[in-house]
């Protein structure tokens, strides 16, 4: 009797995906931030097309997971919210990519 769990391990690994990263809007935000030192709220709003409320919610979720750092400052008396990816965020994104690649390879 073949070991079903061993055979389907790469497929079953989908259940272990980090759901914080797996959500499309957050995956998009993490991918953008992974190639930048910092991006502000207005830029991310334009680039992703997310509404302000939606973007704020996802930002908070990523911050709670420790994947992004949010810094608020005033530039020319204007509030600016800057986001940057943390080392933990980079690791999470890399792990997610590796697992997704393995999973997709299994489908071929």
């Amino acid at each position, binding site marked *: 009797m073949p070991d079903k769990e061993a055979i389907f391990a790469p497929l079953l690994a989908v259940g272990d995906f980090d759901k914080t990263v797996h959500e499309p809007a957050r995956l998009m935000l993490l991918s953008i931030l992974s190639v930048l030192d910092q991006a502000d709220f207005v830029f991310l709003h*334009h680039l992703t097309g997310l509404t302000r409320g939606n973007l704020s919610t996802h930002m908070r979720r990523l911050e709670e997971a420790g994947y992004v750092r949010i810094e608020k400052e005033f530039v020319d008396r204007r509030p600016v919210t800057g986001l940057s990816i943390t080392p933990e965020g980079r690791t999470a994104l890399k792990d997610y990519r590796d697992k997704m690649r393995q999973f997709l390879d299994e489908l071929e």
Partner: protein
Amino acid sequence: MKMSYPSTGLKRKLYLVYHQDGLLEVVIGAALLILAAVMLSEQMAFIGLIGIPAALYLPLKQQISVPRLGHIRFVPERESRMKLGLALFLGLAAFAGALAVYPVMKGISRESWAAVEPVLPLVFGGLLGVVLAGVGWFLKATRFYVYAALGLALVWLVFAAGGRTGLPVALLGVVVEGAGLLYVSRFVRAYPVTDDIRDA
């Protein structure tokens, strides 16, 4: 910790998005026009004026682009300052080198001058092309390679036709400045400042 991630394409696209406002062209076009005016009038003492448009780049970005599109930083501020410092140093070194070579060139014999003169357009066009291509490489803005090729072609064409040195620079300045103003007007229309894009 840097991640080995195939993100070069994404970074390049972000560079293009961030520099779609055309302010780079406006600044470089203005610098080329000033350089052309200095060359045509042969008032080399005013060469420092080309620094004025460069100094205006960041205030323009802050006033026109940032309220509309937002702000991003590609590298940490310290690294960015170091790169800018290096670019300024290289620019000043090139300028000082040119100033040092000028009296030497004036002092050489008529025969030597006759030998050197035909290659000068080649050198000047090449320098102009290298500087513009360097801007394109540094900012990952491929359209600057087109300006570099155009600059090179214009310099050689005008020299071949017996025109003055400043003329191709002026023509290139008009093209780059015109493209910049076009990009700026398109950018301002595409990204109006509205209440819903204020910060979180």
